[in-house]
């Protein structure tokens, strides 16, 4: 499972993006723009996969947010769909019924959770319990320090 990048956005507004291939900012912007247009143009009930350049795009909509992954030709679409779902579950569990605002105001947390779950585009840890444990430990690390400062 080698996703090239992952993005979350609504109505064309990017909430989070993570790239696993080195590209220039200009290219990233261009790709994002193109992809947002393509995905937003799709109707509900259409399939969640599309061919795009030499990659496959897997996307899923949760409420107003679109989660979107680009994977390579050999990768498994359905399992990627569940990677997205597992990530949403992780966000949900961490924030307690996650909503878009959580991701906006705590975008850095959303990144940390993603990093615990995926590394370099590969699934690192699929156990929900283990990912959350790691995040909570990190939270514990920082709270006392904040009090100090």
């Amino acid at each position, binding site marked *: 499972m080698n996703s090239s990048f992952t993005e979350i956005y609504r109505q064309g507004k990017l909430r989070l993006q993570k790239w696993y291939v080195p590209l220039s900012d200009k290219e990233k912007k261009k790709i994002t723009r193109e992809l947002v247009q393509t995905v937003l143009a799709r109707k509900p009930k259409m399939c969640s996969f599309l061919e795009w350049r030499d990659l496959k795009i897997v996307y899923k909509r949760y409420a107003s947010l679109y989660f979107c992954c680009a994977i390579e030709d050999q990768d498994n679409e359905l399992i990627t769909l*569940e990677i997205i779902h597992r990530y949403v579950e992780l966000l949900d569990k961490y924030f307690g019924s996650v909503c878009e605002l959580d991701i906006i105001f705590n975008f850095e947390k959303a990144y940390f959770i993603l990093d615990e779950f995926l590394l370099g585009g590969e699934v690192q840890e699929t156990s929900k319990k283990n990912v959350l444990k790691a995040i909570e430990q*990190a939270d514990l690390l920082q709270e006392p320090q904040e009090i100090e400062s």
Partner: protein
Amino acid sequence: MPAVSKGDGMRGLAVFISDIRNCKSKEAEIKRINKELANIRSKFKGDKALDGYSKKKYVCKLLFIFLLGHDIDFGHMEAVNLLSSNRYTEKQIGYLFISVLVNSNSELIRLINNAVKNDLASRNPTFMGLALHCIANVGSREMAEAFAGEIPKILVAGDTMDSVKQSAALCLLRLYRTSPDLAPMGDWTSRAVHLLNDQHLIVTSASTDLQDYTYYFVPAPWLSVKLLRLLQCYPPPEDPAVRGRLTECLETILNKAQEPPKSKKVQHSNAKNAVLFEAISLIIHHDSEPNLLVRACSQLGQFLQHRETNLRYLALESMCTLASSEFSHEAVKTHIETVISALKTERDVSVRQRAVDLLYAMCDRSNAQQIVAEMLSYLETADYSIREEIVLKAAILAEKYAVDYTWYVDTILNLIRVAGDYVSEEVWYRVIQIVINRDDVQGYAAKTVFEALQAPACHENLVKVGGYVLGEFGNLIAGDPRSSPLIQFNLLHSKFHLCSVPTRALLLSTYIKFVNLFPEVKGTIQDVLRSDSQLRNADVELQQRAVEYLRLSTVASTDILATVLEEMPPFPERESSILAKLKRKKGPSTVTELEEAKRDRGADANGGPEPAPASTSAASTPSPSADLLGLGAAPPVPAGPPPSSGGLLVDVFSDSPSAVAPLAPGSEDNFARFVCKNNGVLFENQLLQIGLKSEFRQSLGRMFIFYGNKTSTQFLNFTPTLICSDDLQANLSLQTKPVDPTVDGGAQVQQAVNIECVADFAEAPVLNIQFRYGGTFQNVSVKLPITLNKFFQPTEMASQDFFQRWKQLSNPRQEAQSVFRAKHPMDTEVTKAKIIGFGSALLEEVDPNPANFVGAGIIHTRTSQIGCLLRLEPNLQAQMYRLTLRTSRETVSQRLCELLSEQF
């Protein structure tokens, strides 16, 4: 402001985010952002040293601004500073900023690498984790250079925590992918495999409760998919026991997929089917278990009508590959009706696209008519984005599976009618090639295009096909008064003014062909050619054609006209250019494999190769601007020298640089001319001239090839390549240097070839030249005249010696003889010059008959010297020659005899 912040609250950040969200307009938002950027900039530049918390907060704000879509051009240094903080949260934000915002080739990378190095060495697992994430996220070459050696050590060190090992393994994988040369997998693989069983492994911790890895009642779907994927890197196991176990596993997966669902959640079905699809991929990859393949097909068949669009899509996609297996091809075909109905009813274009792909993949002779008909009818409503591809596919199938070529012609004309704009040049070139190569369909084609042209509005592509076909075969329907020559001409000419310049040029060629086919319309056509709109046309090509054709029709006798305007000869057979085009469109792997698989199957299952000769063939090149008549720039007066470039020399079809053009027409003639001489022009067309200058001495030679750009435009990517067959390569050593890929207009470049004859040889190397001229790709091949006789050293000898040796070489295998008709006037002096040019000594007063010519010489190769004697006996009365070669080696006698007998 919602208080949703959790963990470490950065109040300033939350306030800023709220402000942005409250902005009523884009302008207000930009204003607020600029204010914040100014604030942050002044803070970073200020005299007061910022504490870690503030730095972290500002870096976070920059990150947020970046995510809103604004460029960030400062703050990188502050982020890098955060990396060396001892506080986890500060370090973490620093790494986050870098992973999102720092380009892999940033100058900061050295500073970053330093911080990463410290964290990797810190033995603090959380810091190590952050550092490993950073390496994997940036994944640049610099990172690989700095850490590829370090990470494997962390991976196998006994005191590394499992979670860090996990990250280290994936990080190494990432580096291996970006820079395989730097990541020393070879050395570490066995240790890593020993440790983890494989480098993809997700679950490293054996002590973890496996229950955590069950996902919606599906046990460890990610791991299962990974393992099935890993198995696809290997061929099927050879050990029958292992093979049996694997088959068992795969059967279990197929069985499980059939069980009633344990949950109604889509996650359950997705995870389960993810494993199923991966298992089917493995079954297809092995392509060796007919039972599994057929079962896979039937289970996918159930998905074809599933209510989940995703499953329908994937089933269609997966079936495409099943269709290419000989074991499951028939099973896939049983679903044809479902797939056709998907094509008609699916609301999602990407699913319809998959259905087209599957129809293409499952097509064979038994269902071709049905499938092509369905594609044609779908084309009328198909999405614009996929029309061209459908046209190509339908054209390929119609050609490949045509039993009756009238069906093929109908299909292509229908394609043009329904989707003329999407019919690429390759498609209409191809129909013409096939019509020209198959005389059983020519009359039908002429009749059909004639009828199609009668439609009040017809596509320009139809005019092209119609013009070409009627120009060649209009005579086949001229007997019918409804399609008399004049009617044919008027019909075509009625379209003339609506067409583009290339089509008009083609039609003018059709008209001159008509002059030959139908003398009765000559006057009418001459009137048309003579009109001001032709003779004074602003387009130089049209004007030239009009002038030349008019002149040709006036001065040439009927015989000459008939020769010049003869029917086009059959095209050489080649791979279909349409197929090549489809490959280009779809990327090389997919189509090629599919096609090859299909071809194999065709041979295996149908008990023989495709019967139709045109089915895998293709041919050269009527291009719209190209000359229909093959006249090129040669003068239309046959008394002049025969045009060296008999036809179109530039291959417009092979647009892929790897394909080598077939030999240019005329190449053989030119080749023969160089047998007895070393310098001259080898090739010439409108764009390019190739000249040669060469010298040979014993077994060595040197040839200079001069490439002249005849145009005023640069040639780009100019690449001449010498191509030798394996046999030839063993016997002839050629060394050359690449030439400058750019050849300016009017310029000439030269290339030297060092030659050594290792052993005697019969073939000639081919010189292939590829380049870009304007927007077009040019591909020319010519035979390079390096022939065995070039390595001749002449030997003088007296009559007695000659005949003594002649007798010594009396073994029939040492002699090669050829009796042939003279092609040139039998002039003694010319013949002498040719024999000397051939390389042997011309021995005077040796043969008792003074009319005969004898010669002697030695062929030098690296390893041996071969004595050669030759005798040429002209018979003036019969205008014949008898040529006899005697050498100590059979192959040499034959080759020299072949070469020399072409010269007289």
